[in-house]
């Protein structure tokens, strides 16, 4: 192969790579795609013990129950996009201390008073919520995983 042909092949391959990347990459989704995603994802927010009259649309609330030191139904993944407001309510049948890594938020739960998290998801990545009570007891401390995708 001549060096001109080689150069042509190389340039062609790079062009294919770039075009394929641009075509495959989803378009910047701060438009209608995201709006469509948010709306159907919060059906179970009807237990409104803390009604928030302002702030439309209301952020989805994830409810987690801990019974006998284990998460009922297994630790869920909570998926949000960056910038959304995250609401997590964790009720436990015994006193517990819950810690969200990365964001470094700690909340206490009592048997009759659930732990409430409410914050803006401003860090992208995967973060774990752990129960310090389960950790101290040598059990699996994972309560939930928060997955914050790019907006």
């Amino acid at each position, binding site marked *: 192969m001549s060096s001109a042909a080689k150069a042509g092949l190389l340039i062609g391959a790079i062009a294919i790579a770039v075009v394929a990347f641009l075509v495959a990459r*989803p378009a910047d989704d701060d438009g209608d795609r995201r709006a469509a995603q948010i709306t159907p994802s919060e059906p179970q927010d009807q237990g409104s013990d803390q009604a928030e009259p302002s702030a439309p649309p209301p952020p989805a609330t994830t409810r987690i129950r801990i019974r006998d030191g284990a998460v009922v139904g297994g630790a869920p993944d909570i998926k949000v996009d960056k910038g959304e407001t995250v609401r997590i309510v964790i009720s436990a049948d015994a006193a517990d201390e819950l810690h969200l890594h990365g964001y470094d938020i700690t909340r206490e739960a009592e048997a009759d008073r659930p732990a409430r998290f409410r914050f803006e998801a401003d860090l992208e990545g995967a973060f774990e919520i752990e129960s310090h009570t389960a950790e101290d007891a040598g059990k699996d401390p994972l309560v939930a995983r928060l997955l914050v*995708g790019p907006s």
Partner: protein
Amino acid sequence: MSLIAHGLVGRSDLPIPEWLFGWGAAMVLVVSFVALALLWPQPKLQREHWRALPGGLGRALASRAVELICGALGVFLLGMVIWSGLRGTQSPTANFAPTFIYVIFWLGLVAVSVLFGDVFRAFNPWRAVGWACAWLARTVSRAELPKPLDYPRQLGNWPAVAGIFAFAVMELVVSDGDEPHNLAVATMVYSAATFIAMALYGVEAWIERGEAFSVYFNLFSRLSPFETRDHVVGLRRPLSGLAALKPVAGTVALLAVVIGSVTFDGAAEGPLWTGIAPDIVNFFDDLGLSTQRAFEVTFLVGLTATILLIHGFYRLGTIGARSVGGGFSALQLARAFVHTLVPIALAYVAAHYFTLLLFQGQAFWALISDPLGNGSDLFGTADRQVDYAVIGANATWYWQVGFVVGGHVLALTLAHDRALALYEDTKLAVRSQYWMLAVMVGFTSLALWLLSQANG
């Protein structure tokens, strides 16, 4: 069991999106075929063309004084790890030892080695102590020391294989492997074993082949253009350092351990492993082990099996390459191409751990000021926080896929060059290439698949 469970990982990576997985896989194939067409017809990397850095800089950088300072710093840090592990708080994140060992040392030195060459050699605390002891003994006895034993040829890199495997077990299997006290004890045991081996076989012989971390970081340093020869730092042709690697007994196994342990760490949080692990745990539970022991044995089985699979896959490729002819045994081929696994190992390590280094590496500043976790502030940096916003999810994904595809390209280039040098017949060289190409596409696809797994 992994570091994630130990709290050293504050923020972990999201799985790469499907479209990027597809793009990365397609790129691997495009790159492979373009490389086959484009790469040079004559071997180019088999000589290093080493040249000293100009203006006496090379000599100054590797001078006795610099080496002395680096060695002293290495010994100081080794002491810090043991001291803080034994005396400090036993909370893994608040103690200096776990973050230093698992992040700064284990991951940070890989990055430093790739960029600047075999820097660890200068900082190696065991080497520094070894030489200091030899010097002291010579001065006191006023005589030459007895000659060390000959390093057994069949021992090769096997002590390093054992060392790196033990480190992986500590990191991924032992459930209290993050406890500062355990880390301090493990460090002391390893130091003692290293000093005994050095006394038997000589400091440099052991550093070169047996000392696990020297061998490990030296492998990655061969990707760097910098190399020190006879106390002079110089530049060599890119990648030629890897071509100059002299494989010995155990070198192939060492790379299988490196790639296999990263693979297991990635897969251990994915659905494949979490699906079968409980059954294995139950099996060992029924044999009468405690739950914690059953978990540890299960993870040990998983880690070992993954390493053996990786090793077997590579050996399968070399058996295939043997079938094209040329009169080489499969073992000869396995050793002849083992250096091509180094960029693949780097791609695995970098793609999986670079964000951990980026995030938890920042904790170094707070921990060096408060190594025991008792509220001290030695350097005024104790309240530095980790900034988890230094890189976004998109950028992380692009870097990860970039590491994997880049590692593939480097491995391919090295294999091509070695095949040309090895086979006199160019046709055989090209045909043997298809087998090595299949091996690399396999490793690279596995790396991409691991990145696309929902890891914890």
